[in-house]
């Protein structure tokens, strides 16, 4: 019995020794690597008051109040890119941003503005504004998420895949000419490009900002990464907040540009669409973009793959994953990663104001161009076209189609425009991907 005990205790001692030797070895290497930090680690006895004051130094209250504590910005690219915060960024700015985040929570929960996007983004913003925690840094949670899929444009493509798998091109195939409305809405992109240049942005940044007019978050991130990576945060936040604000921004523009009679127009029911048409369509779009604009194929390719997986009808498991599990996971990560750019030092700069304003103009111009185009089509077409559906040409799928349907049924109860609006809506996704490809090809 005793022998057994001795043996076990010896075994424990050996294990402890080896782990200690590992630990010391490890400490040696780290102390060689960073001599400064190892000297700090030596603990000196402290009085209780010293302990209390050193604890006070590490509290958030102190970090928010003390404006000269040498805090640095958090940058997912690594500490080499981090700079010291100024007094505004380290105290008041953070408080302002946290209040903005609470406003976003309110909009998402109480008003129901696209909570799927706004809540992850806003919470990411809340985490990014915590002092001292450095969550947006290279080794912080938000920084890791950012590097994982936003900095390398991966998440936007996955989102496109999921959107492709969710999209039903039936309405577009049944009434193909509504696709042209999706093109008109891209005027928002190019019109605001001119506006941004007038304000004083250079051409590349202006192009990146103006993509917000497509109301397409993934495309905006994709383009901003290529053309103006330093503005990515503000552009992504602007794009997603305008997507969330579709129900607020669009209806006044739609109502201003149409008469009540026009809003009341009832459209013909759509013809049924052959399954083969739906199956061939994604391939058709992809082939066309390969021939015309290979620059846009990352986006359109992912989109076409998702849609083809759905329409093939034989890999429901995969298309189901793309539509649900995958896109949900990516939405969480994308939201939090975008939210990390709501840190006060990145967001509360003058450029952000410019980006938000141009984004809003771009978005409104896109909506207006779509509606005007639909009015023109209505004049020349033998079938009646409700001009409202032009507003769905911005590619916020399916929110803008829903908004169109809502405004339409307000003007004439029982007039359901949802399926008619889906045509321009999905064409808008293709259109903004094409517009993105054009802009990329210019700066290649």
């Amino acid at each position, binding site marked *: 019995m005793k022998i057994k005990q001795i043996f076990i205790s010896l075994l424990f001692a050996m294990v402890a020794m080896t782990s200690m030797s590992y630990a010391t070895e490890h400490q040696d290497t780290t102390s060689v690597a960073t001599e400064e930090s190892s000297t700090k680690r030596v603990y000196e006895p402290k009085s209780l008051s010293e302990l209390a004051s050193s604890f006070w130094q590490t509290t958030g209250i102190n970090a928010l109040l003390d404006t000269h504590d040498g805090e640095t910005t958090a940058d997912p690219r690594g500490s080499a890119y981090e700079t010291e915060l100024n007094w505004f960024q380290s105290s008041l700015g953070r408080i302002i941003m946290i209040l903005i985040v609470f406003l976003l929570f309110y909009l998402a929960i109480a008003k129901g503005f696209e909570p799927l996007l706004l809540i992850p983004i806003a919470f990411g913003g809340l985490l990014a504004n915590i002092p001292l925690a450095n969550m947006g840094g290279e080794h912080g949670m938000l920084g890791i998420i950012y590097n994982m899929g936003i900095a390398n444009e991966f998440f936007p493509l996955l989102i496109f895949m999921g959107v492709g798998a969710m999209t039903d091109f039936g309405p577009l195939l049944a009434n193909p000419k509504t696709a042209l409305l999706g093109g008109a809405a891209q005027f928002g992109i190019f019109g605001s490009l001119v506006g941004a240049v007038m304000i004083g942005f*250079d051409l590349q940044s202006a192009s990146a900002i103006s993509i917000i007019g497509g109301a397409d978050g993934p495309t905006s991130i994709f383009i901003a990464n290529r053309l103006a990576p330093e503005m990515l945060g503000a552009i992504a936040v602007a794009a997603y907040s305008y997507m969330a604000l579709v129900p607020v921004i669009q209806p006044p523009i739609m109502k201003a540009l149409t008469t009540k009679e026009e809003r009341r127009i009832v459209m013909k029911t759509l013809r049924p669409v052959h399954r083969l048409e739906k199956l061939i369509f994604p391939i058709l779009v992809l082939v066309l973009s390969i021939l015309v604009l290979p620059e846009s194929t990352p986006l359109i390719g992912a989109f076409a793959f998702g849609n083809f997986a759905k329409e093939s009808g034989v890999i429901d498991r995969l298309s189901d994953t793309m539509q649900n599990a995958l896109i949900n996971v990516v939405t969480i990560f994308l939201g939090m990663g975008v939210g990390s750019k709501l840190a006060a030092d990145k967001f509360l700069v003058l450029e952000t104001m410019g980006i938000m304003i141009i984004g809003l103009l771009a978005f409104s111009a896109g909506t207006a161009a779509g509606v005007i185009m639909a009015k023109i089509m209505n004049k020349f077409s033998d079938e009646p076209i409700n001009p409202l559906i032009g507003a769905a040409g911005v590619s916020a799928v399916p929110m803008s189609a829903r908004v169109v349907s809502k405004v339409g049924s307000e003007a004439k109860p029982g007039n359901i425009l949802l399926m008619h609006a889906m045509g321009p809506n999905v064409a808008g996704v293709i259109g903004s991907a*094409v517009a993105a490809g054009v802009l990329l090809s210019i700066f290649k």
Partner: protein
Amino acid sequence: MADVNNVVEALKFMVLGMGVVYLFLYILVVLVKVQASLIAKYFPENIPKIPTPPVGQTIDEDENRRVAAIIAAVSEFRKK
């Protein structure tokens, strides 16, 4: 001066961009129409009839049986 040039450049982008977007969508619309007419020509039966005929037949059969049953019942009743 540089600003003015940039604005002109941006306008050129606009012309090119809108042109390409419209060209792309227009070709797409044409192709979709061609595709729809081809499919309607060579695979005309598939869409409305694959779902409906089986349903229609079963309904018809049921209906026939029901009618037969009613006739039989009525004739049985009259015989009495």
